[in-house]
C-alpha cells in the first residue's frame, strides 16, 4: 500500500515534466504577444519591443525555459507579466471560490443523483425509472449558463431571495458564503446529477442481478437493506470512479458558471490568463491543475481498496 502510494507520487514527476515542456513551448509558438497586449491600443512597435525586453521575452526559448524551470524547482511559479503579483498568490486567491463551488456542487450532485440512480435501478423499466432517465437527458441537455440565468431571474430578480452574483469568503460567515453559492452550485450540478444518476442506475441494476442479491433476499432481509447494503455497496467502484472524474472536470470546468455568477475562481483566472497571454500565469495554473488531477486520481484509486476488499495494489 505504502509502496503503491510512493510509486504513484513518483510517477507524477514525469507527468509534470511533460506538462511543463508542452505548455511552455506551445504557449511560445501560439499566436499572440503579451507585450503587445500590455502596451495597449495606443502603444507602438517600439513600446512593444521595450516591454518584451523587460519581460525577458527576447531571450532564446531554451534560455527562457531553463530560467523558468530553475525558479520552478525552488517552488517559485514566477510572477504575472501584467499584475506583477506572484503566480502562487494569484492562484491561492482563486482556490477558495472554486473549491467551494466544486465541493457544494459535488455534495448536491451526489446527494441527489445516487438516491435517484438507486431508485431507478430498484424500479428498473418502470415509470419512475423512465421519468428519472428522462430527467437525466434533460440534465445533460441544458447548458449551465441557461439554467444559471433562469435561476437568477427566478430567485434573485423575481423573488429577491438570493444574490445575483459574486462570492463571499467563508471567513466572512457561513450564511453569506452559502447564499452566494446556492444558485451557481445548482446550475452546475445538473449535468453531474444526470451523469452520476445514470452510472449509479446502471451499476446498481447490474449488481441487483447477482447471485448474492438472490441469497440476501432468500434470507429474508428487507428490500431496502438489500438495495443499499448489497446492491449499492457492490456498485460503489464505478460510481466513485465517475464522481472522481466529475471532480476533475469540475475543478477546470467551472468557467462558464463562474462567469455567469461573477465568481472569481480558477476558471475565470485561466481564461483571463489565456486571453492576455500571461505566460507565467498560464503555466502555473496548468501545472497546478495537473497536480490536482493526479491527486484526485490517486484518491480514487485508494478508495477502491476501501470499497472492494478484492482489490490489491
Amino acid at each position: 500500500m505504502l509502496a503503491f502510494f510512493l510509486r504513484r507520487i513518483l510517477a507524477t514527476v514525469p507527468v509534470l515534466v511533460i506538462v511543463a515542456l508542452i505548455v511552455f513551448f506551445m504557449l511560445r509558438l501560439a499566436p499572440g504577444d503579451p507585450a503587445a497586449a500590455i502596451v495597449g491600443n495606443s502603444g507602438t512597435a517600439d513600446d512593444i519591443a521595450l516591454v518584451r525586453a523587460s519581460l525577458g521575452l527576447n531571450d532564446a526559448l531554451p534560455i527562457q525555459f531553463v530560467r523558468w524551470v530553475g525558479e520552478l524547482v525552488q517552488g517559485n511559479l514566477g510572477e504575472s507579466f501584467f499584475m506583477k503579483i506572484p503566480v502562487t498568490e494569484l492562484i491561492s486567491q482563486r482556490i477558495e471560490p472554486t473549491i467551494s463551488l466544486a465541493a457544494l456542487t459535488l455534495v448536491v450532485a451526489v446527494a441527489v443523483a445516487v438516491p435517484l440512480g438507486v431508485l431507478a435501478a430498484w424500479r428498473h423499466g418502470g415509470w419512475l425509472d423512465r421519468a428519472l432517465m428522462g430527467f437525466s437527458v434533460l440534465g445533460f441537455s441544458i447548458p449551465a449558463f441557461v439554467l444559471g440565468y433562469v435561476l437568477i431571474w427566478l430567485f434573485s430578480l423575481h423573488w429577491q431571495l438570493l444574490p445575483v452574483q459574486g462570492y463571499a469568503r467563508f471567513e466572512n460567515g457561513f450564511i453569506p458564503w452559502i447564499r452566494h453559492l446556492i444558485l451557481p452550485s445548482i446550475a452546475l450540478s445538473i449535468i453531474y446529477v444526470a451523469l452520476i444518476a445514470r452510472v449509479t442506475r446502471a451499476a446498481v441494476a447490474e449488481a441487483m442481478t447477482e447471485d448474492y442479491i438472490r441469497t440476501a433476499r432468500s434470507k429474508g432481509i428487507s428490500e431496502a437493506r438489500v438495495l443499499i447494503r448489497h446492491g449499492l455497496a457492490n456498485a460503489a467502484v464505478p460510481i466513485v470512479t465517475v464522481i472522481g472524474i466529475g471532480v476533475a472536470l469540475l475543478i477546470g470546468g467551472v468557467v462558464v458558471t463562474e462567469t455567469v455568477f461573477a465568481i472569481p475562481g480558477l476558471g475565470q483566472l485561466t481564461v483571463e490568463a489565456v486571453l492576455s497571454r500571461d505566460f507565467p500565469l498560464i503555466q502555473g495554473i496548468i501545472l497546478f491543475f495537473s497536480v490536482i488531477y493526479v491527486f484526485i486520481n490517486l484518491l480514487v484509486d485508494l478508495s477502491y481498496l476501501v470499497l472492494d476488499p478484492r482489490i490489491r495494489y
Partner: protein
Amino acid sequence: MKTKLLRLTALVALTGAAALAHAQDAEKVLRMVPQADLKVLDPIWTTAFVTRDHGYMIYDTLFGVDEQGKVKPQMVDTYSADADGLNWTLTLREGLRFHDGQPVTAEDVIQSLKRWGQRDNLGQKMFAALETIDASDAKTIKLQFKQPFGMVLEALAKPSSNPPFILPKKVAETPAGEQIADTTGSGPYIFKADEFRPGEKVVYTKNQQYVPRAETPSGTTGGKHVYVDRVEWLIIKDAQTQANALVNGEIDMVSWVPAGQYAALKANPQIELLAPVPKGMYAMHLNHHVPPFNNPKIAQAAILTLNQEALMRAQMINQDLYNPCTSIYPCGSAYDSGNTAYFTGKPQFEKAKQLLKEAGYDGTPVVLMNPSDFTLLNKFPPVLAQLLKQGGFNVDMQSLDWPSLVARRAKKDLPKDGGWNIFITGWGASDTMNPLYFAPMTGNGEKGWFGWAVDDKLEQLKSEFLATMDEAKRKDLAQQIQTQVFETGLYGPLGESQNYSAVRKGVVSGLVNAPISVFWNIKKHN
C-alpha cells in the same frame, strides 16, 4: 433573575447589532463595474483605458482639460511663459501631499515628467524640444525649450493614455520599460493594495488629505471632491450579470453599458442612463507598409466603400448609440470640419472601382482581421468585408482573438507571411480631440503607429501644429491634417458611438462630464 438576564443579553445584542448596522450604513461605499478588468497598475507602462482611469483615481496632473476640452491648471497654481513661448514657469499650489503624507515637490514633478516623456508620443516630442527642466525651488518648475513648442499646456493636460501623472520621485525613477511597484500618488483616492484582487475587486478609499481646487469640477479639472468613503470596482465580465446586479441593487453603477444591455436598462424605471463621456470613434486602419495599401489610391478606394450607417448599426445595435461622423475629430468639437474631401460616409462603389482600376489593383486578397472574441468590435468586419467586395476588393477575412490581433498588427510582413492589411479599433474623444493626441496620426513610416504610413506632409503639418500657440492657426492646420489623412488614405472613420453609464436612479448622482471616465464628485444617497 434568569429571565432578566436573558432580556438584558438580548437588549445588548440588539443594540450592538444596531450600532454595527449604523456604522456600516455610515460608511458610504460606491460599488461599480469599471470599463475593464484592471491588471496593470502603471499608467505609463500601458495605454489601457482602465489603467488610465485607475491613474486618475490615485494620481493628479499638473493641468487638466474641462468638459469642453479647454486646458486649466490642476496641481499648478500659477504659470507663465515668455513672449516666444520658450521659457515656462509653473508653480505648484499649496496643500499638495502624497498619500504617505510627504509634500509634492518640483523634483517629484520633474522625475515624473521625464519618465512620461520616454513613453508617451507627445511627451517624447515635448522632451525632444526641451533644453532643460529644473526646479528653482520646492514648488517651482522651469522649462526651457530650444525650439518653439506650442503644446506645453496640452501635453501636460493630456487626458488620455498616457496622461502625465505625478508620482513620488523615488517611484518615478523606475525605468520607463519596467512597471512601478508602488502606488503612492497624490490624487483624491488611495489605492488599497492589500485588498487588490485582480479579476475580482479593486478598492479605493477617500484621501482625507486631498485638498480639492475651489472651481466646479469639469473634465479632469476643478475640485475633485470625494463624497464616498470607499469605491469598489467589481469585476463582472458578463454583460447580463452586470445588468442583473445593477437592477438587484448589488452594485450602484456600470461604467460602460454594453450595447446589448442598453434597451433593457433604458426601459427599467429603477435605472438612469447617463452619458458623462463624449462620443468615441471607430476607425478602419490600413497597413501602408505592404501592398496594396502602400498605394494611396487603393487606400482611398477602401475608404470610399465605407457605409458608416450600415457598419455602426451592425455593431451598436441601437440607433441611440451611434451617429455617422465623417470628420476625423469628434463631431461638434473644436476642430470638427465637414470638409472631408471625397469621403461622405456613404458607399461610393463605382468611384472605388475606378480608383482600383487606375491604381492597377491586381486582385490580391486583402487580409481583414476580425477579433471574433471582442464583442465591442466583432460585428464590424463581416459588414466591412462585404462593402469592400462591393467596391471591387478581394477580401480574406481572418478571425482571431484580440490578443492575436494586437500581436499580428505589429508584424510588418506581407499578409501571406503572417502580416495583415486591415483591422478596426475604437478610440475615445480624448484621443481624437487633438491630432497630436491621436496615436495613429503618424506619417513617419516604421517609427510610427501600426500601418506605418509614410507621409512627409502630414509630419510637417503636425510639426507646425506643435510649434504654434495660435488657436486660429491650429484650427487651420487641423483642417489641413484632416485633408491629408483622406488624401493618403491613412485611416477611415466608421462613425461615432455613445457609451452610457448606468446608475441606480435616486441612489447615485454627481457624475462629472469629462473626456474620460472620472469618479470623483459622485454622491451616493441611501
